[in-house]
């Protein structure tokens, strides 16, 4: 299941110490698309995302980026190619938004190389895109949950990696900022050809913004494919144990997912 472009996994077994969370998983994530990873709590979504970003060494199998194994890449080279936004990091007290976003330039800099105009430009762009330009001087620990989350997103954007991996990027955000962040991801994919892979909790977000969907349950891929084909009531029932009505949204040409009730156990 390899493809020449994009991120793919071959026979991936992942876990922590003895217990494995994911066994023998193979997956192809199309380049230049917005992929949503869906699944119930504890199904291994975050674990998979870490392995795809080279932050977790697989117990077996490998991850390929454009046909090359990422295990063989250096740490900085991998960070230039793959930007990961994890969950729930806490910045040190008093650190300004701008100083945090500047840390995203780490993989582009040698140990003693000076700060370049390209670095400033990337930080500036990331601040603008996340609407944080006016808050750049504020300490991150004094921001609201939503602003803080956007600061972390800005840091990953400043990394300028062609592939972005995001673990629940809309957590902590209010409705408006949820739509802003997902819309931003969509624009990065459509206008700049980036690949975005996001673990999402909300079916509605996936249906509205993603191009491609991967559904996991208990460490296995139950379905993957274009969003309009993979979001099927029978598959959603299997994955989440919820009856979901799926119908076309005449306004957007996309799907609407409406939970109707729990499946019988």
């Amino acid at each position, binding site marked *: 299941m390899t493809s020449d472009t994009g991120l793919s996994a071959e026979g991936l077994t992942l876990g922590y110490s003895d217990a494995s969370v994911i066994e023998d998983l193979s997956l192809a994530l199309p380049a230049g698309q917005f992929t949503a990873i869906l699944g119930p709590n504890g199904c291994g979504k975050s674990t998979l995302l870490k392995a795809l*970003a080279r*932050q977790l060494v697989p117990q077996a199998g490998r991850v390929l980026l454009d046909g090359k194994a990422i295990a063989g890449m*250096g*740490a*900085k*080279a*991998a*960070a*230039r190619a793959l*930007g*990961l*936004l*994890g969950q729930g*990091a*806490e*910045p*040190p*007290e*008093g*650190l*300004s938004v701008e*100083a*945090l976003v500047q*840390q*995203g330039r*780490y*993989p582009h*800099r040698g*140990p*003693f190389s000076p700060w370049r105009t390209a670095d400033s430009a990337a930080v500036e762009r990331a601040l603008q895109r996340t609407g944080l330009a006016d808050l750049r001087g504020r300490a991150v620990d004094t921001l609201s949950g939503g602003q803080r989350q956007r600061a972390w997103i800005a*840091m990953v954007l400043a*990394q300028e990696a062609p592939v972005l991996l995001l673990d629940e990027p809309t957590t902590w955000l209010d409705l408006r900022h949820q739509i802003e962040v997902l819309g931003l991801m969509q624009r990065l994919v459509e206008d700049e050809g980036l690949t975005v892979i996001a673990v999402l909790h909300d079916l509605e977000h996936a249906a509205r913004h993603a191009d491609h969907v991967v559904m996991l349950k208990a460490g296995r891929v139950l379905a993957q494919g274009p969003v309009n084909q993979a979001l099927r009531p029978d598959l959603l029932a299997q994955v989440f144990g919820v009856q979901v009505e799926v119908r076309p949204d005449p306004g957007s040409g996309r799907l609407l997912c409406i939970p109707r009730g729990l499946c019988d156990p």
Partner: protein
Amino acid sequence: MRLLALSLILALACMLALGMGDQAIPLAEITRVLTGDPDASPVSRTILLTLRLPRVALAAAVGASLAVAGVAAQAILRNPLAEPGLLGINAGAALAAMLVIVQVAALPESVLPAFTFAGALVMAGAIQALAWSSGTSSLRLILVGVGLGALAGAGASFIATFGPAAEVQRAMVWGAGSLQDARWVKLMWIVQWGAPGALGLWLMARELDLIALGDGVASDVGQRVHLIRGLAILAVAMLAGAAVAASGPIAFVGLAAPHIARQLGGTAHRGLIPMAALCGAILLVLADLAARRVLAPVQVPVGLATALLGAPFFGYLLWSRRNDI
């Protein structure tokens, strides 16, 4: 600008410390001695050049070393209450000193620093090795550090219990931290061992900025977190080991100086490290002056003075963070 202001304060503190004592020396006389003016009185010259100057210089150097080590320890342990002692450095050095002073009385005193320094390095290495489980984490380092520190403390007490009283007494004095026996050779230890450690940490300033965000984030953007932490611990052990060898363990400076510097100069380590070094130097020069003068002619060990100041400061830190912890 702030660095300049701090340097001036340090210079003032040093002048004060040089001038004050059982025999007060006026500023003009100090200037004459320091500039090698032949009009300076021989008494002042002797007091300044053989007693006070080495002592003040050593206080400044030890204070700066402890402060820089503290900055780095707080960054790599991601804990604002961390200080080099948490990495087992004081306990290792104290145990080595106790062993040398009590058990091997035949050895000349000049080997003491080598042993305490080795004790500090061995302890830092052991803590790192025991905390290793496919990498180190700050929590495991702190837990193992506290455990091994207690063990080393118990070892030192064991030796003290059964050792000859006179030697134990000497070891206890050393263990309280004192600058009374300041000599130029001790300053050389800090230059040889501490300065490279401080320079290494300053060159790693950007890495420290990043690792302070947490292992996960640092590793996500491509930092080799365990390598950086290992190097930083080595540098901290060099700095604190040299300081402990020169003056015995001195509490509080490694904790307080980084906090004061952060209030003054923000979070970026490139500026924070020199700022903390100056703060540490000022603190220890003043603390040693107080230790010399408050109960004069009795000299209180400076480690005792800083500990007395440090306990309320620690309480203040806890109180100011009572909502976070």
